[in-house]
């Protein structure tokens, strides 16, 4: 697992850092300042290393450990091997949550990518692009709770959407916030609020394509589609890869918006139809409704981690192409 992650991380670093990771270091190898710098290891890296290890790495490893035990948080831990994993995969609630997580990952992900790419193509040379870009980026800085609460108001039976639909002749608007409709609505809300961020990243990729390629296309008589297929896509391919990795990592943690979407049902827990694995983990461990099952809860979390790791590796493989130098 960790090796898998490490590979992905290496790729991320290489990708992010572009051309010259080692140049700076090579130029000064062996100089006295270099030797001095090496002495800074403990005071400079030490504190960050210790806090990060204790508060992030150890808990991650402990999660894997706990997932092989039966434990209610207090009392003795009992080693049960893979039983928790078998148990969650037999639990219809977990399967529903896992399915929802996959829906977010793939359906919402693809929708975001298609829209973001289309938007970045339109934005490329339109007037006022800076204004548009700053406005569509802003939702990324807002807590998703806010969108969840607002959606509850907008789709309320007497809310904005229905007051707008009324004059249009819709006499019986759908029950937007009925349990079976909530998750699709969450998916739409996520597309609406996340696309702007990915558009901004894709634009950074589209922007670095030098203008003379477009001129050359025009001179060669290329159609808009040919220009897209042979210039823009190959030259932004690596940015696509980065975005896909980012979405994989962030979609698996989605929690807040589901927790409050459409107000709250009586018990303070969202309807099970809209759970994701993150919600499943939290509820199984902390809801206080039944005996907490830390084993099953961490098993669910570890499964999400495995999902992320596998997908990141697959993505890096699939997106790997000869880097186009330009």
């Amino acid at each position, binding site marked *: 697992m960790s090796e898998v992650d490490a590979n992905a991380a290496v790729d991320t*670093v290489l990708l992010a850092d572009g051309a010259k990771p080692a140049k700076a270091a090579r130029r000064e190898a062996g100089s006295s300042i270099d030797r001095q710098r090496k002495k800074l290891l403990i005071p400079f890296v030490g504190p960050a290393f210790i806090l990060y290890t*204790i508060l992030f790495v150890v808990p991650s490893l402990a999660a894997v450990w706990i997932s092989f035990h039966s434990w209610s948080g207090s009392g003795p831990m009992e080693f049960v091997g893979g039983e928790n994993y078998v148990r969650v995969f037999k639990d219809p609630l977990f399967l529903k949550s896992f399915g929802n997580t996959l829906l977010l990952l793939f359906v919402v992900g693809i929708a975001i990518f298609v829209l973001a790419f289309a938007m970045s193509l339109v934005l490329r040379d339109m007037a006022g692009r800076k204004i548009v870009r700053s406005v569509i980026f802003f939702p990324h800085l807002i807590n998703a709770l806010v969108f969840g609460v607002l959606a509850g108001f907008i789709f309320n039976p007497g809310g904005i959407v229905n007051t707008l639909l009324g004059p249009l002749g819709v006499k019986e608007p759908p029950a937007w916030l009925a349990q079976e409709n909530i998750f699709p609505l969450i998916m739409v809300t996520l597309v609406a609020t996340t696309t702007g961020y990915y558009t901004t990243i894709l634009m950074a990729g589209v922007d670095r394509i030098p203008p003379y390629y477009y001129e050359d296309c025009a001179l060669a008589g290329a159609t808009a589609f040919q220009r897209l297929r042979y210039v823009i896509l190959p030259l932004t391919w690596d940015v696509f890869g980065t975005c896909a990795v980012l979405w994989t990592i962030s979609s698996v943690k989605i929690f807040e918006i589901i927790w409050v979407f459409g107000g709250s049902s009586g018990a303070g827990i969202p309807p099970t139809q809209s759970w994701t694995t993150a919600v499943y983990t939290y509820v199984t461990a902390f809801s206080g409704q039944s005996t907490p099952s830390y084993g099953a809860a961490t098993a669910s979390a570890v499964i999400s981690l495995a999902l992320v790791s596998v997908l990141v590796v697959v993505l890096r493989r699939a997106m790997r192409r000869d880097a186009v130098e330009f």
Partner: protein
Amino acid sequence: MSTLNKPASRTTMRRSAKTAATGESGPPKRPRKSASGTASSPALRADRSPLRTVGIVVLWLIVALSIVMLLWMLMQAFRDTRSILSDPWGLPTSLAPDNFVRAWTVGDFATATFNSVITTGVSSLLTVALAAPAAYYLSRVAGRFTQGLTMYFILGLGIPAQVILIPLFVMLNQVYLTDSLIGLNLVYIGVSMPFTVFLLTAFFRSLPLEMEEAAALDGASALRTFVRITLPLAKGGILTAFVLEVISHWNETLLALTLIQSTEKYTLPVALISFVQQQTYSGADWGGLFAGLCIVVLPMLIIYIWLGRRLTEGLTLGMGK
């Protein structure tokens, strides 16, 4: 057509593109020489397809809608629940901050805001203070060991928060740091290390080395070089990293919800959730809720207006390079 994608033809394409860009006379005479090389050359404006026009209109609609939504939310915070429900499109009749006062006093948003400000400020400051030296070391010392260390830090980027939730709760509980803002601060610092170290390492690498070398030649120690030369040069990047941490800690919900139990230690997102949940019993107070939303959103809006471009660059750093 597919040959256009082959390397050989790409080089020829690039060559011809370069001559075109520099405006040198090649065999084919270029039609409109005057407009060459600039971003507004006719070649770039060539496509005025209806599809594109639709796209532009849609984009401006999205922009208008976003701004209207934001303003609408601000407006509703000044209206009382009954008028909000009877006419969601109405404008406030007065600017009396009743809802804010009520949210502030009854909804415990005052304590929560105070807690959030303190937690966000302290943890972001400490995160950057710890990550900057580490990132400096990782960006300046070469070797397999450093590479491995960098990897170790970056590994955390791929671990979703729910994985560490339960072990963290158990561990902190043993040292009496659950339901404690100190514990929450520590957790935020630890969890933010991967991204901050990643961002700052990339940033330090992008700085020119000449001044550091000059300082070293003048006999400055490595520590002195870092404090007197690199840190001032890196002010911009460090500020970006700090503000990005402020944003993520201000909005962090899952860990705070798990680790904090008593009302007087709630951070804003937790207070907001509890406010939403209380409505199930005490009836909807949409006015107060909108005021609460504004308290969560407005600081982000102010930061964004103040530092907008820097944040976009920080969050997309490396993606476009």
